[in-house]
């Protein structure tokens, strides 16, 4: 996979899809929840990445 960010996007997309289909029955609701979860995953990942930036490994 060419980048860590792409790996995170793929991970977030698949997990969001599975959770949304698991928790909702109507396709429209599934799509809405999936999008919401995907956005939350990505935003949280980027924010945490910035917060952790000053800390050395």
């Amino acid at each position, binding site marked *: *996979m060419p980048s860590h960010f792409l*790996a995170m996007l793929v*991970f977030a997309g698949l*997990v969001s899809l599975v959770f949304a*289909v698991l928790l909702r029955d109507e396709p429209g609701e599934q799509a809405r929840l999936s999008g919401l979860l995907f956005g939350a995953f990505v935003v949280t990942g980027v924010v945490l990445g910035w917060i952790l930036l000053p800390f050395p490994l």
Partner: protein
Amino acid sequence: MGRKSRDSRRTRVAAEPAPTAPAADSGRALAALALGWAIPGGGHLWLGRRQKGVVFLLALPLMFAIGLWLEGALAPFDPIQPLVLLAALADLGNGVPYLIAAIAGLGEGRVVAATFEYGNTFLIVSGLLNMLVALDAYDVALGRK
């Protein structure tokens, strides 16, 4: 039919126990659980939830395959290392894809690969999600959902 007769019929009907729902078939629910574990989405497909089953059947093995492609490792069952043991149990949640990969010698992992931990994450999370999906199939079969 007189009023008295109608009233007595009402009284009789009210006194009869309400028809109960057919008893939940726990064997069928366990079969859905086992099938859902073995084949991601298999439990839902068997129960007629085609849309959900197809999504799980595509998404979860794809996650598992990406984990292997990213050079993640299938964790060994090592009781001396509890965290590794938990990871192994999570991997086992993938069902038949896990067994195929283990028999084929895939999932050896390459610790020095930049994507090693990403691969592990995909493998573990796909197994845990499949466990949730199998439990959901169990609930559906019991009529809870």
